[in-house]
């Protein structure tokens, strides 16, 4: 009878696990604006998925891949500021998605879900996307982890040392796009970026190696999913925003507790 709850748990935990390392990399590589652009344009993917009748997640994957390619193209032109253009792309895509959504489907009831997530409506097919897509992303990250870290520290230095920087960057952008697309159902287009970066930012305060930070980010994301779903059950809070709120509370705790405990001594890094 609680099938929807188990599916919500499985979907939420799956996304949180993958979001840990991906979110950490987004922070390290200063790509939060790119992540926002991706997550906002995921809504346009919803429209595409409905219009072509290929499913919401497949549409989101297509659009997110397209934005990733756009990002690669922009990087080639030094005259264009990434942040400005991505900020424009993000909100233009969001607005376009909102406008077009009206024409492809009578979705006013679902709109809130697409924007803010509807984890309690996760279907078995969504779980396949989340766990299948998540496995692909983790496999890609495992392969490119070391060269990607080297590039993150200094891209030209890595290039001189023989890292195929263009290929590694593209692989990573596709990984981010895939995570964003499959996470759409869980937290919605507006909140995906928060599930990526808040647990990672929290984990930064508790860890001393990149791998530990990525793993801790995954664990904190899972805790946030459990807490958010719990709040939804107990107090009837909307589940997806409650998950993001739980992640933010964990971050606030990570800032406040060491400061309180050590009273002025340096916080653990």
């Amino acid at each position, binding site marked *: 009878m609680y099938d929807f709850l188990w599916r919500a748990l499985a979907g939420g935990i799956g996304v949180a696990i993958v979001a840990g390392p991906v979110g950490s990399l987004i922070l390290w590589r200063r790509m939060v604006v790119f992540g926002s652009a991706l997550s906002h344009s995921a809504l346009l993917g919803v429209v595409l998925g409905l219009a072509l009748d290929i499913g919401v997640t497949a549409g989101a994957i297509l659009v997110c891949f397209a934005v990733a390619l756009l990002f690669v193209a922009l990087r080639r032109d030094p005259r264009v500021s990434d942040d400005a253009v991505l900020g424009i792309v993000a909100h233009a895509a969001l607005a376009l998605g909102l406008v077009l959504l009206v024409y492809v489907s009578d979705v006013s009831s679902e709109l809130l879900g697409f924007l803010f997530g509807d984890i309690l409506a996760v279907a078995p097919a969504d779980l396949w996307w989340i766990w299948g897509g998540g496995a692909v992303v983790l496999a890609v990250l495992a392969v490119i982890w070391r060269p990607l870290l*080297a590039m993150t520290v200094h891209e030209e*230095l890595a290039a*001189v040392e023989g890292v195929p920087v263009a290929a590694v960057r593209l692989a990573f952008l596709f990984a981010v796009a895939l995570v964003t697309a499959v996470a759409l159902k869980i937290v919605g287009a507006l909140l995906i970026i928060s599930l990526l970066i808040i647990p990672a930012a929290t984990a930064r305060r508790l860890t001393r190696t990149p791998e530990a930070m990525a793993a801790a980010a995954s664990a904190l994301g899972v805790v946030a999913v459990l807490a958010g779903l719990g709040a939804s059950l107990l107090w009837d809070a909307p589940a997806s925003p409650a998950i993001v709120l739980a992640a933010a509370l964990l971050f606030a705790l990570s800032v406040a507790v060491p400061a309180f405990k050590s009273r002025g001594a340096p916080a653990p890094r």
Partner: protein
Amino acid sequence: MKHAPVAPAPLHGGDRPGTEPLLLVRDAVVARSGERLLDRVEVTVHSGETVTIVGPNGAGKTTLLRVAMGLLAPDSGTVQRRPNLRIGYVPQHFSLDATLPLTVARWLSLSSNATPTQREAALIEVGARGLDGRALQELSGGELRRVLLARALLRQPELLVLDEPVQGVDMAGQADLYELIARAAAARGAGVLMVSHELHFVMATTDRVVCLNRHVCCEGAPESVGKHPEYLALFGGLPSGVAVYTHHHDHAHAASGAVVPLAHDHHHPHRH
């Protein structure tokens, strides 16, 4: 003086000009929005040779290094590097996000296959002993330069490419660091191509100076370039009282600033 190219030079050994160069940049032009950042620039580096590029801000020094390393394709002209040339690069700019928890030791291990013993030896060689457990972001300017140099040396480079290798280092430390670079390159028989802001500091350790202001103004031995009219036109306004560092120190400065005895001779017995 110049011979026709002969068989490839051995990997280690103090070859002088005359053998096949490590790096040959010829007629390189790089243009952006119709403006030439590099105008038919030529640079050659041989094994065991130190070539220093001097020039004012915006002279295209870093652009030339990027062209030389293959990071940037010139719009015209040719760049020849010896096949599979191992380059150790020390970039000028280094800014790492505070959110990446990365120690010096871990970073050194990221893309070289050096053993922990080799990594420690490299840190000791550059006077950065004991920094391995520090976060990269916590390093001072001087410490970071030394760690970057250690990483470049760990690749067993045939060519060291150094972009302002003493940036952020105090005046006394600058001379030390230049001497250290010269010793490290000599011990490996490596060629050095470096950018420096100031000719006087590098005179003692440089074989050839290229004065660059988008085009090569003049080139030659440090003493002759220092007297060249075009060089003086670019740098003539600088105070002339800067000492030329040719003396030898009887001590070295560790990255911490502590004075330590010079103990390099037993690290490089083959220099004798």
